[in-house]
């Protein structure tokens, strides 16, 4: 028990270090899957916040520019909203971005 001293991260690291090659492959699948779930839930909001920050805009600035409510922008950025395509289009257009699909490993899908 002391090998991880109660740290969850150390617990995971210990499991990975002691894993067989086959087991490690299974763990990699699970990790990849968790990353995909994370990206699906939070990626778009993170991208929106990053774009907004790159433009040195506050959420209020973006709200005024797009007509989308500041609270809605906030909820989108933290992954708690379910915005319409039109809302995302407005936000993207104001930030010089377009909404597209990408593969799960992040590669853009040609139109």
């Amino acid at each position: 028990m002391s090998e991880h001293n109660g740290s969850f991260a150390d617990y995971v690291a210990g499991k990975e270090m002691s894993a067989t090659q086959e087991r490690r492959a299974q763990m990699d699948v699970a990790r990849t899957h968790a990353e995909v779930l994370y990206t699906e839930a939070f990626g778009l909001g993170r991208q929106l916040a990053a774009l907004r920050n790159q433009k040195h805009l506050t959420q209020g600035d973006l709200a005024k520019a797009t007509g989308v409510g500041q609270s809605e922008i906030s909820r989108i950025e933290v992954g708690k909203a379910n915005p319409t395509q039109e809302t995302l289009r407005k936000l993207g257009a104001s930030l010089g971005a377009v909404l597209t699909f990408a593969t799960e490993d992040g590669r853009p899908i040609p139109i």
Partner: protein
Amino acid sequence: MNPDHFHREFYEDDNGTMPVLTWLNRLESDDMAKHDAIVYALQVILAREGAGVCGTEFGRTLGKGLYEFRLRQGRGRLSPPSEQGDRTSAGQAAGAPATTGIRAEGAAPWQWLRGEGAPGPTRGASAVRSQLPDVVACSTQGGGKALTCNPQRYVAYPISLLYGGL
């Protein structure tokens, strides 16, 4: 580890027992894929978002300082249909719905408890709280296992501890 990530620890009670660790080890023996799904969801999603998962598909506020972390999808999504199993009892306990075209590979729901309004803390939990100003505890809905974190610092312990033996 990214310094922006939430630090997570196993709750250790006054007897030196880490119930979540015990549970995870058992789960690993029973269903390795489910174990891995939960472990990496906690490692990736909870570590990055902490209580921010509330209001998303991964968590919600239950009230009175109680929160829940839930993983609705596991390996089933990555496996061909012929390899998918039925929804697990853990998933059923969570009321996890099957996802479109994919059976939910139920992973145990996690809950965490935050702040002074937490019901029925044990001696161990109280002791942890006294050391950590902003403690959050996690546990599963179905059977009392927990994890930890801290934002800061979250500490997890079994729901059976929280409720005195649910």
